[in-house]
């Protein structure tokens, strides 16, 4: 079994979804979570607050510094993610298709083998 990160990307400035659209998204996301759990593929999932609530922590030569804001000043941010385990990339892509239909573009990224031992 391999583990994959399925991350949902939010583009800054994209039109805000209507309440109804948000409801649909939550409902479908819930369904995907249920199906993943039933299939034994679900490891972890979660949605994130907006990037302006992020804090960056650095440790340079024993000195800890903190700064406000996301790590990279980009227009795209991770809005939420799934961690799943499945046999191969095709299986991961099949889940990603459903996630993308519910939440928008999804990046599928395999974990390296060391971290899934």
């Amino acid at each position, binding site marked *: 079994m*391999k583990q994959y990160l399925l991350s949902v990307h939010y583009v800054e400035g994209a039109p805000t979804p209507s309440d109804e659209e948000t409801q649909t998204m939550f409902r479908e996301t819930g369904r995907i979570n249920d199906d993943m759990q039933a299939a034994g593929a679900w490891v972890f999932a979660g949605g994130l607050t907006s990037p302006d609530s992020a804090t960056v922590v650095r440790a340079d030569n024993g000195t800890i510094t903190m700064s406000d804001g996301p790590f990279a000043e980009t227009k795209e941010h991770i809005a939420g993610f799934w961690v799943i385990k499945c*046999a*191969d*990339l*095709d299986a991961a*892509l099949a889940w990603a298709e459903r996630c993308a239909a519910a939440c928008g573009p999804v990046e*599928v990224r*395999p974990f*390296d*083998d060391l971290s899934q031992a």
Partner: protein
Amino acid sequence: MDLANIYRAEYGRCVATLARLLGDINLAEEAVQDAFTTALQKWQTPPPNPGAWIVTTARNRAVDRLRRESTREARHAQALLLHHQDEPQEVGPVRDDQLRLIFTCCHPALAPEARTALTLRLLGGLEVPEIARAYLVQEATVAQRIVRAKKKIRDAAIPYRVPAGHELPDRLPPVLTVLYLMFNEGYASTAGPLIRTDLCAEAIRLARELAALMPDEPEVLGLLALLLLTEARRPARLDPTTGELVLLADQDRSLWNRALVAEGHDLVRRCLRRNRPGPYQIQAAISAVHTDGAATDWPQVLALYDQLLALAPTPVVALNRAVAVAEVHGPAVALAALEGVDLPGYHRLPATRAELLARLGRDDEARAAYDQAAALATNETERAYLQNRRTELTRDRRAS
């Protein structure tokens, strides 16, 4: 049969089978290369079944090598080999393995340019410099594309299997595209000599394999028919003395390869019987009409282009259809059909417009369009052809 031919024919098949036995493409390539090196030293004359000899030798070599190594990949490969131990000692290339490897190389998760390079390398056994020459890119670029693609196959666990029936609508088109582009690049090279027969031959060889492996997929048969019927006309495509491009209408039909024409026509008839038309089958049917009888039945060609345009409404199809429109309804109607067709940077659009304008006697506009086309053409033979046409236009009008 000499070793070079055996290598060309067997390399991909052997790598495909070893990839399944070892579970790793890099290990499979190394093992097969080792086996060919051994063959070079040992063979006085090739054995009756060289593929089986290579696979068996490669597997034994791989076992020896894996026993000496203790990396994680080696342990994994050893476990897989143990798992396959019930297979007979003398194993040959397995045809399904090749199909698995084609689908892995052409997986939609890989970059399109990497798919072609990987297919040529792993299934065609072409070396990196050969691929680089064929596509006029730096060797380092090709090497990097291949390394990156193989790494992604391993890291992301792109599966090594033939997709299930319900996945084929998504997974088969990229495979057909790779073979089509491979042939096209060989037939109308971006630069250098106009025709690169090695790429054409490799694309046809792989399309034949694919058709043998998936005889029930009409688009696979359609692609093979299209390649064969195009290849059949190759001997007449360049003037033997001047090396200039000869248009279909002016070609010496006695130079066409009759065996390939017959095979292509037979495949097109098989497709028609299945009655599940697709873009490659229709293009093959158009090629079949072009190669049937003493002259082209243009109304039939136009009807097929109408069908193709409905199925694949792309600007290139619209451009090709306009050529048929000119033959059936005249150049003015064809020129009108090209209104709104946009193909930035593609020389064949202004070249076609130039032909139509010339036929209408609109010489100044025709010359301008020929200039535009010649400036965009990247292949020397094609550029020379366009410049000739422009010169002839001036001369013909002066003479009359």
